[in-house]
């Protein structure tokens, strides 16, 4: 048994005002943890979206939890632009650090490897580069007249995600979301909500072990069934399209967003829908 199993509210308390929090975009989005952060009134987060973000960052921004967004793009996909993100950028309420997808991955991989920086092709001549004071252009040390961008490591305070299965030993099964290893290695702490906690050791199952995140990298696990709702979790549940659509509509203006938020706060949908 592992002492890393905690309640959702205990987990949320480990995320402090001002923390740099890294979020993976794909089907591993800890929506219920996000709602809990809003309820507890977390402020001034620096979100890193890997590499892009959708409803979770938009909702956190709208609720006033966020000071900075480091991202390659925030959008609700087929449900349109991310309205709260858009209005926060426009008003200057949040600081935006625009990147490009592989730059986010590369920065996290640098932190994973303990490198202070990592090079990346592309970017030169873009306004993305022009507006990132923390990106540099150096000469390739191995070739004359070959400028190349170098990116600083991205070392978040906390990685958070939702997964299907953890075990009582603190290991988490991440299925095909291999990038969850990168973000967990890069972050100081990793907090995971899961659909189920099993008694057997995931690492001792030869077919599961290759897609397991070792307990060494996991600082907290909370049992939160439907914790990605209304987003999806492959093998467990699909998108709840009408709820996402309702969000997309509500988020279009601040007063309907506020109303939507109050509905969320007054009753968690997670264990009842």
């Amino acid at each position, binding site marked *: 048994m592992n002492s890393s199993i905690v309640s959702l509210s205990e987990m949320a308390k480990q995320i402090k005002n001002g923390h740099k929090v890294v979020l993976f*975009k*794909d*089907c591993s989005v800890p929506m219920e943890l996000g709602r809990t952060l809003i309820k507890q009134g977390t402020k001034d987060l620096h979100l890193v979206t*890997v*590499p*892009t973000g959708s409803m979770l960052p938009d909702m956190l921004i709208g609720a006033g939890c966020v000071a900075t967004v480091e*991202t*390659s*793009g*925030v*959008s609700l*996909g*087929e449900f349109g*632009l*991310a309205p709260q*993100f*858009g209005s926060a*950028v*426009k*008003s*200057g309420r949040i*600081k*935006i650090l*625009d*990147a*490009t*997808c*592989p*730059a986010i*991955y590369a920065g996290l*991989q640098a932190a994973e490897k303990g490198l202070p920086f990592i090079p*990346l*092709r*592309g*970017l*030169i*001549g*873009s*306004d*993305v*580069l022009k*507006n990132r004071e923390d990106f540099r252009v150096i000469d390739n040390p191995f070739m004359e*007249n*070959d*400028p*190349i961008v170098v990116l600083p490591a991205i070392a978040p305070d906390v990685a958070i995600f939702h997964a299907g299965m953890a075990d009582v030993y603190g290991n988490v099964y991440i299925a*095909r*979301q*291999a*990038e969850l290893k*990168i973000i967990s290695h890069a972050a100081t702490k990793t907090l995971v909500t899961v659909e189920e906690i099993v008694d057997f050791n995931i690492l001792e199952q030869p077919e599961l072990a290759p897609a397991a995140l070792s307990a060494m990298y996991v600082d907290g696990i909370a049992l939160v069934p439907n914790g990605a709702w209304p987003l999806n979790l*492959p093998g467990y549940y699909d998108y709840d399209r009408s709820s996402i659509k309702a969000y997309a509509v509500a988020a279009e203006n601040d007063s309907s967003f506020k109303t939507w938020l109050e509905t969320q706060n007054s009753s968690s949908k997670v264990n009842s829908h």
Partner: protein
Amino acid sequence: MNHSIEELLIATIAEFLYGLKHIAVGVLSPIPGSAALLAKVRSEEVKKVSIIGSTQEPYRLDGGVDLFDCAGQGRVDAFFLSGGQIDGQANVNLTGIGAYPKQETRWSGAFGSAYLYFLVPRVILFREEHSRRVFVPKVDFISAPGVSAPNIYRPGGPYALVTPLCQFLFDRNKKQFFLKSIHQGHTLEEVHDNTGFDFEVPETIPITAAPTKKTLKLIREKVAPVIADPYPDFAKKCWPNH
């Protein structure tokens, strides 16, 4: 045989893809996705079509890093980009309108464009709206530049631009679009009226070839059922009887 505008666009884009080993398609791209699938069913050399974000074999990739690493290795031959604004130097703006950072209109962001536009040899620009709002003299924000100085490592870049009115090729030396053909029923005047940047025009302007009967059959029988998985609404709209 009658065809829809979507079928014309699919067939037109596919012409750029035959013989390429690996074609990658971004999210929310049913027409480029269909074109890539058409290229695959028509061309044995096309070994892989990757649809970013797909969770279906054989279209998925091995996670998010895989696409970018694969492009870095030179193993992605074609990709598609769009833009809220595109200008005559093929600069692409996916970020927003107005003075950065507090833009009047903020779109999503650069996504992979500022990297893939440099690395993938054939980047096909595609936009379903052909207007002066989209095709501007100069983009407000360069999410990804169309051209680079000669000393910049850039095996990739813009190759063509396809719209509902016409198709352009991009001349990387002249740093300019070149009108390749106008689709049936449209005119050069219409293209000029709706394009905010200058482009080269050939002496005689071909009409875009209509998809052949065989091509249409492949689109309807082989492509439509596959593209219906990621894009059910698109497939229902285009091929209501299939």
